[in-house]
């Protein structure tokens, strides 16, 4: 995505940690989602064990059929589909957040595991580094 990705790479000192990215905000309106995705791609380039969790309005980040023409910003949702190519394949979505917004797994652009709030807590417990955006 950026020049720095080309310059850097490999696990520093051979250390691989479990990184969990917690995405809680809608994709547009603020820049958090887009810049979170940039960190995800860098950590993959550093050969870390990367997982993503989508909670609250963060579930809208991976909803199908995003059209941003009228707001004049880039639709970056196709990037989520490219994550597989970076070996980022563990994507979790909170069941309660989906249901509260009238969404189902079929509305999402990428394959995910839908898990409960309680399971999200266990997921966080099992990670070394949690970045919440």
């Amino acid at each position, binding site marked *: 995505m950026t020049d*720095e990705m080309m310059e850097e790479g490999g696990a520093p000192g051979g250390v691989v940690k479990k990184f969990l990215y917690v995405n809680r905000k809608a994709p547009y309106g603020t820049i958090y989602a887009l810049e979170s995705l940039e960190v995800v791609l860098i950590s993959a380039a550093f050969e870390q064990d990367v997982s993503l969790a989508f909670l609250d309005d963060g579930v809208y980040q991976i909803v199908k059929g995003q059209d941003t023409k009228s707001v004049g910003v880039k639709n970056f949702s196709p990037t989520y589909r490219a994550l597989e190519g970076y070996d980022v394949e563990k994507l979790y979505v909170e069941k309660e957040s989906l249901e509260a917004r009238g969404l189902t797994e079929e509305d999402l652009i990428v394959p995910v595991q839908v898990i409960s709030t309680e399971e999200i807590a266990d997921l966080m417990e099992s990670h070394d580094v949690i970045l919440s955006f």
Partner: protein
Amino acid sequence: MKFGILVNEGPYTHEASDTAYQFTKAALEKGHEIVRVFFYHDGVNNGTRLTTPPQDERNIVKRWGELADQHKLDMVVCVAAAQRRGIVDTDEAKRHGKDADNIAPGFHISGLGQLIDAGIKADRLVVFGD
């Protein structure tokens, strides 16, 4: 303990930068190590030396710089986030044909890899933001 610090919000608008500063200062006073302070999102705005708050207000940028100077802190401003928001050092200004730089003393510009590296090296990465 080794801490990594991530600051995701700009100064004054949001308290995150103040809290991150107080946390970092307290951790250092208790004898902990700060691996790196990384500024991301609007957090990069903590690193412009052009900040000029009223004299009776805390100077957030200067305060970070002083802490860095005292404790030899590594304070990194994300290059990609900084470019979007107009925070540049001499090299970046030159590379992008800008007529000035504005990075504050104590800060330097580097890549997001430095954030991942802090996550790897620190026992705890503490995120300050919304």
